[in-house]
């Protein structure tokens, strides 16, 4: 166990060193804050430091501040040594990141006891860090495992599916009715296996937080109408009436349309499966103040009350049997719940055995992102605006650096598309000003410049390592991809 001492007074220093060596600690001695900070930056630095408050050049509190700001790992336990008995001063010391303090003149027994407490804390921190590292590693292995396994499963599935469908399609010759019957069953099961693998991968991605929503402006009414049309045939074949109750006109939301589609598809196909001929399915969308409530109701078999809480658990297939022998994956509702929650919503079920079920979920309304387009050429601003389509983004414009900074402060846009050559203040200065102001330093910036951009300088400007740079002429797709990526919530 090693301890760092930073103390400018020789006598106190020797006293401390002696007392700690006696207790079996290995001691590194320094005479001021600068020296102490140098030692602490070494890879194998002591994890406990006793710092005198008052020292020339860099004092103990400054060392504490530096350690907390710049040295995250491994953990360093800091004890301030102070002649100040004032409670206010002590509070200041603890606020800067010290763990403990000892007032001078100190009692050696007390100091040794406090060092012991500190060592216990260091041990705990180290084992915590070890555990976190192990967990992260395990999590990575799990994700890798699932993605490798699902790939390894998909290849043979693809071969089976391709082969069976060649035979079924008569490509390799005529087949008998019995053969067709058996092969159709085989095909159904291959499809089920495919759904299972895809579902597993989806669930693992949701659990790992690896799904990024790609939100875009979407008309929910049109989308639901589309999905309903898609299922209409299937429902009618089963003798079920499918209808929608939607608000009039257009209901624009900023959501990931693929994911919302997946949610509705899942709930509607479930409803069709568990509803008998003569039944009805209603898909309803209703706009509320800060969210949109959607529901899929059926007049099907319903779910027993005791089973409702289990519904959203993995691999649970409540005894809702539809008679067709079709088996789901037991993952659909888990995925649906994950996707709803990613959209800041909730999902729940109202159901009565024999009467039917209603699956209801909300989607949080999030503001459409605003993009500030900065360029001194009106033509370019117009092109960018056209590419970004007014429907999906709230577009602001600025034709000079000063105006850009002003508008950024006022409107706090989700993204700034910045030209570097501006008449009044160049792009570098705009970035510098934006980064200096805490109201604007979190706004992502996308550089769009016809001239060569000094990357070094941009990286140097505080906190700007990740500014993507696009050239002119503008490639619409590249621009759109970058913008979509950067404004993601």
């Amino acid at each position, binding site marked *: 166990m090693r301890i760092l001492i930073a103390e400018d007074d020789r006598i106190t220093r020797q006293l401390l060193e002696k007392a700690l060596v006696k207790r079996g600690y290995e001691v590194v001695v320094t005479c001021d804050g600068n020296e102490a900070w140098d030692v602490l930056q070494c890879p194998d630095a002591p994890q406990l430091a006793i710092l005198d408050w008052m020292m020339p050049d860099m004092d103990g509190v400054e060392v504490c501040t530096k350690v907390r700001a710049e040295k995250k790992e491994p953990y360093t336990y800091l004890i301030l040594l102070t002649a100040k008995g004032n409670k206010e001063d002590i509070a200041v010391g603890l606020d800067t990141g010290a763990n403990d303090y000892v007032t001078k003149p100190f009692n050696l027994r007390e100091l040794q006891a406090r060092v012991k407490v500190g060592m216990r804390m260091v041990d705990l921190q180290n084992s915590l860090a070890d555990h976190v590292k192990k967990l992260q590693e395990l999590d990575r292995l799990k994700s890798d495992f699932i*993605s490798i396994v*699902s*790939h390894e499963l*998909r*290849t043979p*599935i*693809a*071969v089976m*599916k*391709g*082969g069976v*469908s*060649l035979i079924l*399609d008569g*490509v*390799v010759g005529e087949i008998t009715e019995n053969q067709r019957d058996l092969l159709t069953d085989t095909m159904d099961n291959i499809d089920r296996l*495919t759904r299972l693998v895809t579902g597993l*991968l989806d669930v693992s991605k949701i659990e790992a937080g690896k799904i990024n929503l790609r939100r875009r402006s979407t008309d929910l009414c049109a989308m639901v109408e589309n999905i309903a049309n898609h299922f209409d045939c299937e429902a009618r074949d089963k003798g079920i009436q499918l209808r929608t109750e939607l608000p009039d006109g257009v209901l624009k939301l900023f959501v990931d349309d693929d994911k919302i589609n997946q949610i509705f598809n899942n709930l509607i196909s479930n409803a069709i499966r568990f509803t008998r001929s003569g039944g009805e399915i209603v898909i309803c969308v209703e706009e509320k103040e800060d969210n949109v409530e959607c529901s899929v109701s059926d007049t099907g078999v319903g779910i027993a009350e005791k089973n409702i809480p289990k519904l959203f658990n993995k691999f649970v297939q409540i005894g809702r049997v539809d008679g067709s022998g079709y088996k789901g994956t037991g993952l659909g509702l888990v995925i649906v719940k994950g996707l709803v929650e990613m959209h800041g919503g909730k999902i729940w079920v109202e159901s009565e055995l024999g009467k039917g079920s209603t699956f209801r979920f909300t989607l949080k309304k999030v503001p459409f992102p605003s993009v500030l387009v900065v360029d001194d050429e009106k033509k370019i601003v117009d092109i960018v605006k056209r590419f970004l389509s007014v429907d999906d983004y709230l577009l602001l414009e600025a034709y000079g650096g000063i105006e850009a900074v002003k508008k950024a402060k006022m409107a706090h846009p989700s993204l700034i598309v910045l030209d570097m050559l501006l008449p009044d203040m160049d792009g570098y200065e705009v970035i510098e000003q934006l980064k200096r102001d805490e109201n604007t330093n979190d706004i992502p910036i996308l550089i769009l410049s016809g001239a060569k951009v000094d990357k070094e300088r941009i990286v140097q400007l505080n906190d700007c390592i990740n500014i993507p740079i696009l050239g002119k002429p503008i490639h619409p797709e590249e621009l759109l991809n970058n913008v979509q990526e950067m404004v993601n919530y």
Partner: protein
Amino acid sequence: MNGSIPKRILIIEDNEAFLKILKMRLESRGYETILARDGLEGLNAVRKEKPDLVISDIMLPTMDGHKICRLIKLDRNIRHIPVIMLSSRDLDKDAEIAKKGGADAFIGKTIRAEVIMDVITKLLYKDQRA
């Protein structure tokens, strides 16, 4: 096809069984097939044979499908040939890389044969409509 010269499709795929299935499916539709079993062989075949369309797997020996696609799309002489990427991996991620690499379509391997055939027809005959 209409009795004219059959369109030639190059398949780059290292899984022998899947290669066979794809070949049979395509030939049953009247296409002529050229086969390659690894990335480099595939790229050479594109340059030499100038097929009407390329279908490529992503994970391949010697050179992966994404790279083949990028090299095709960078080459003035062959960049007009439509490329379909077939994958069995994590579909979202591959789809994105394929799109960035200039692939004309991206399809999961477990998708229905009809869908694949539709995409092929669309890509082969889009120029004639335009």
